[in-house]
């Protein structure tokens, strides 16, 4: 039998139900793997005692014949999720010491289904970043390397710890969140599967807010079937989040029929970016061929406002962030700066936020403040929201024409070296999101599936974009792509 920590959720579920293994054994295997993987800096808060308690409880449930699919499955949880009594600090200094008195809806649904929490995972501070380099915990490191070159690579971001942990088999799967690509880009950089559901599919309650009209939680898993199983447990309406949709959650795993005959797959011509590496272009074509071979029809489509998605996003997301992050004032939780004699409340706010927020978060809060300030609101914020409406309309029109799913590259490059972008313009880093950010602006479901290796031996992913609420159809397309691509590579263990 393979190492227990390298099992998929589906394999673990089946083995647990047959009594071939126990959740305690699975959990111990993961905890051992985590202990020897400090070099990846993926797990930043370890919760072995909680994990073992949950594992024993899961084993009792399985024995009693009451075992939902996630029962006994050891997971890593992104630090953005509030977990009761366990540090939850969004990788920020400003939330140092914060231990929520409550549990996020997504994690409580997972734990109610019997899942086991191994610990909290590294990420970019407040999910703002594409390389996990803005974290107060330091960089998470990609388990993949360029051939024999030992340069440390980024696992992507913001869910970099989640991606590294799943790729390195430190857990069976992990939660992620995606505001502009934060599940899909790291999944592509680490050769795993990452699904951003339709906006409103998963409750945002108890997840530290970055940009409330864009944020969605989703699963980061070893394959497409696992994404279906885990989404099932995470999704559903929640009275505590008024934007969570009152729409029934279908059986996602049952949708994986492998039959996409007659389906129409759109290839948006605007995603053929200037300067895109030939390998990515080739992979995209191969992906289209695979879907065609499976009986789908490939259609050239146009999404004319694609070019404006990034600038619109970098107005809207910082604007929302600047209001969401106003709550970090040193009064109710987290860090408060030590004050000089005579300092008043404004100095307390200003010093606390200067000490508590890292440079990227400060930058975005200030940009957001600026675009919302009197005199600029219309020129920037309102204009960006109008452009957003046009971006969504582009997608609506394509789906109205009968397109079932859209195929694009997931990222404009493979994983890059940690520190390689340090001297670059902040805008250069933002370009990482070029293929993913449109999906958040339009509120659509999107999934990154590993599809091949580049010439340096690093994983490359493709993205499929689905119709609103059609995660089931999207997962089935992804499943076909996964079967055809046959991606089975794993990073060689060096840590």
């Amino acid at each position, binding site marked *: 039998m393979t190492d227990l920590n390298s099992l998929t959720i589906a394999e673990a579920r089946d083995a647990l139900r047959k009594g071939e293994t126990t959740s305690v054994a699975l959990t111990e295997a993961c905890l051992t793997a985590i202990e020897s993987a400090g070099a990846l800096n993926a797990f930043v808060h370890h919760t072995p005692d909680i994990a073992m308690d949950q594992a024993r409880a899961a084993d009792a449930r399985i024995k009693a014949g009451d075992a939902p699919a996630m029962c006994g499955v050891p997971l890593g949880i992104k630090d953005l999720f509030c977990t009761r009594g366990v540090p939850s600090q969004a990788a920020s200094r400003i939330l140092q010491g914060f231990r*929520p*008195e409550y549990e996020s809806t997504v994690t409580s649904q997972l734990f109610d289904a019997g899942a086991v929490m191994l610990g909290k995972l590294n990420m970019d501070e407040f999910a703002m970043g594409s390389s996990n380099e803005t974290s107060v915990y330091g960089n998470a490191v990609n388990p993949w390397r360029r051939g024999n070159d030992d340069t440390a690579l980024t696992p992507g971001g913001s869910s970099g710890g989640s991606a590294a942990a799943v790729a390195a088999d430190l857990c069976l799967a992990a939660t992620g969140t995606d505001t502009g690509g934060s599940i899909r880009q790291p999944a592509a950089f680490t050769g795993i599967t990452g699904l951003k559901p339709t906006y409103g599919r998963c409750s945002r309650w108890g997840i530290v807010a970055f940009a409330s009209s864009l944020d969605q939680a989703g699963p980061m898993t070893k394959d497409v079937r696992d994404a279906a199983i885990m989404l099932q447990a995470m999704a559903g309406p929640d009275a505590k989040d008024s*934007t969570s949709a009152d729409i029934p959650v279908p059986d996602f795993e049952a949708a994986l029929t492998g039959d996409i005959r007659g389906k129409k797959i759109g290839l948006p011509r605007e995603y053929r970016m200037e300067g895109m590496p030939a390998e990515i272009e080739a992979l995209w074509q191969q992906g289209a061929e695979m879907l065609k071979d499976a009986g789908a029809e490939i259609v050239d489509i146009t999404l004319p406002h694609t070019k*404006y998605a990034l600038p619109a996003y*970098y107005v809207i997301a910082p604007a929302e962030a600047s209001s969401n992050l106003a709550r970090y004032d040193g009064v109710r939780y987290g860090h408060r700066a030590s004050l000089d004699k005579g300092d*008043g409340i404004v100095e307390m706010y200003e010093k606390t936020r200067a000490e508590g927020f890292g440079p990227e978060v400060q*930058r975005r*809060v200030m940009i957001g*403040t600026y675009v919302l300030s009197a005199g600029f609101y219309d020129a920037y914020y309102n204009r*960006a929201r109008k452009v957003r409406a046009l971006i969504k309309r582009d997608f609506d029109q394509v789906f109205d024409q009968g397109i079932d799913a859209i195929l694009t590259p997931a990222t404009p490059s493979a994983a890059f070296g940690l520190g390689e972008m340090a001297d670059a313009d902040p805008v250069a880093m933002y370009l990482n999101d070029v293929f993913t950010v449109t999906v958040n602006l339009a509120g659509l479901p999107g999934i990154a599936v590993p599809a091949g290796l580049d010439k340096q031996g690093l994983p490359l992913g493709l993205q499929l974009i689905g119709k609103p609420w059609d995660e089931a159809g999207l997962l089935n397309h992804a499943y076909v792509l996964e079967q055809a691509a046959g991606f089975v590579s794993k990073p060689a263990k060096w840590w």
Partner: protein
Amino acid sequence: MSIDIDTARRVAHLARIAVKEDDLPALAQELSGILTFMEQLGEVDVDGVEPMTSVTPMRLKRRDDVVTDGGMQDRILKNAPDAREGFFAVPKVVE
């Protein structure tokens, strides 16, 4: 649109983030660079387009205007950097 040092100082204050005087020129330059990137939005014809307010076309849910939770002062205050006698404590506010 370029941001001068005075604007950078004003934005930092509005955002309640202390920025040292020496750091303002670099901040102004950085913010200007990002805003230049956003200038592209000016190319788009948005005449007659309504700003997007809701991601999915749904009516915002409503609930009865009743108290559903509460009575947990200890838990509310538990994470406060400074809590005294059942209150959040802050420096003296004199205006």
